[in-house]
């Protein structure tokens, strides 16, 4: 009798809260897209901004976003995965490893502006001769540091959950530790590793403050990693905040949402490719 009443009440509560939350989330999407869709056009996607972003398009920002994201991931993913492999497979669980992990956890919660400051002081200023000052490279190095903790942590977890039996089976076939790692452990852990990478992409794609300090924010089309660039998020920030061109900002935001959506789908695709065999 009583549990039944509770059950019914909870059903209502859960449905309402569930639907409400989702409604709010979807509303935000709808709001942004509805405000931004108006200005969207082929020109918007393929032209450079004019009049401080009040006119023209977002082409360089799209290109900048892609270049920058790819470079960052290309640097962070291998390094982070390698570090995770070292921590999980090649080191004993001692104090050092534990403190490294703790430090790593700390850093994953450090606000990105701090990374920006570091990047500005170190990569932009100190290593100017190498990085070219404000540049995709400086930004990517900063971004790499920003997302390394996330990638390391996720990769670690993913590698840890690879069933021991897989590794043992491989070793028992006479494979070396390295062969086992490359052919069995990493492919099996790939979906989890990718989750970390996706989270990382999400973080750098959405960050503005840190990259204003390191990536520069030039609206010119970057031609090399030594050029500064502007990501969509930065572009949105500048157009909305400095210029106050809200409509342009919302249009750029719509484009950015599309980019995130595409990246998500892509990541899911890759993840599915790898996990094609791990589900029945």
């Amino acid at each position, binding site marked *: 009798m009583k549990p039944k009443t509770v059950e019914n009440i909870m059903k209502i509560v859960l449905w309402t809260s569930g639907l409400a939350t989702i409604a709010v989330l979807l509303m935000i999407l709808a709001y942004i897209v509805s405000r931004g869709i108006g200005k969207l056009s082929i020109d918007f996607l393929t032209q450079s901004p004019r009049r401080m972003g009040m006119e023209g398009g977002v082409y360089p920002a799209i290109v900048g976003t892609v270049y920058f994201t790819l470079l960052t991931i290309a640097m962070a993913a291998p390094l982070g995965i390698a570090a995770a492999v070292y921590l999980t497979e090649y080191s004993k669980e001692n104090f050092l490893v534990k403190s490294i992990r703790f430090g790593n956890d700390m850093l994953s919660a450090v606000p990105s*502006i701090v990374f920006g*400051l570091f990047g500005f002081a170190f990569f932009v200023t100190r290593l100017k001769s190498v990085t070219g000052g404000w540049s995709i490279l400086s930004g990517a190095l900063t971004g790499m540091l920003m997302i390394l903790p996330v990638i390391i942590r996720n990769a670690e977890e993913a590698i840890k959950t690879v069933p021991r039996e897989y590794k043992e089976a491989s070793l028992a076939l006479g494979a070396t530790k390295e062969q086992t790692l490359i052919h069995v452990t990493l492919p099996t852990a790939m979906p989890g590793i990718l989750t970390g990478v996706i989270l990382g992409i999400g973080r750098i794609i959405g960050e503005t403050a840190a990259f204003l300090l390191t990536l520069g924010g030039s609206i010119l089309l970057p031609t090399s990693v030594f050029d500064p660039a502007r990501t969509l998020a930065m572009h949105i920030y500048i157009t909305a905040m400095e210029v106050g061109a809200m409509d342009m900002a919302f249009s750029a935001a719509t484009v950015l949402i599309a980019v995130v959506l595409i990246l998500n789908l892509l990541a899911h695709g890759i993840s599915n490719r790898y996990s094609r065999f791990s589900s029945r």
Partner: protein
Amino acid sequence: MKKILFICAALSITSVMLIGLFVFIEGYPIFTKVGFFNFVFGQKWSPSDNLYGIFPMICGTLATTLGALILGVPLSIFTAIFLSEYAPKKAERLITPAVELLAGIPSVIYGLFGMTMLVPLIREFQKAHPSTNQIQSGYSVLAASIILAIMISPTIINMAKDALKSVPNDFKEGSLSLGATKWQTTWHITLPAAKSGIIAGTVLGMGRAIGETMAVIMVAGNTVKFPDSIFSPIRTLTGNIAIEMAYAEAGTHTQALFGTGIILFIMIILTNIFASRIYRKDAAAK
């Protein structure tokens, strides 16, 4: 191979550590110049007058974070329960990617939304209820909390849902087969079993709430003042760094901003230690 891996590990870890060191070195002088106590508990922040007290911002950070958790966590967990236990499969399949998408949306966009949608709403509310606060701008703890709550909810929902889903069906069926109702099962079995995952999600969300810069700046009002109601505008620690760093002149002002970073660091470390305490306690019970 092992050496290469070690170099990678060392490289990534040390560079990541460097940042901590960098912030510390850059920010440490402020404590000698102003004094740790004055810095942390000082009420006034006015770099042009050489006043560097960040206490209102610490409170602002705590207030927005707390607000975000209060607003976001229960609702997110309920939503997660809804998605994992109650929602029809098809609905779940539709909603989940949407939630994932929201987790990947940049904070500027949330800020834009907050600034153009939420703040005016709150302002209207304040105008209708003038007693709420003398400053009726809409920029407020509430706005920041709501935006943060919305921002962290995809994270919490996703993690909590995964945790709930990974509770072995065995447990749930065991409970149901004893004549427990669905809610009894969820409450007594599934939630406790998923606790660590949910806590991890919450901690992650909290980390994001504490560390979030851009969206907060855009809706919080950034007034360096002790918040006396949820309608007070406030400035957070991260907001302080992000707002002023761009124009701060080298020297005390910059150091003060880095010092803010150190305090932020310490707060995050404390939160993490606290969280891992809970986490470990929970793990020990199993």
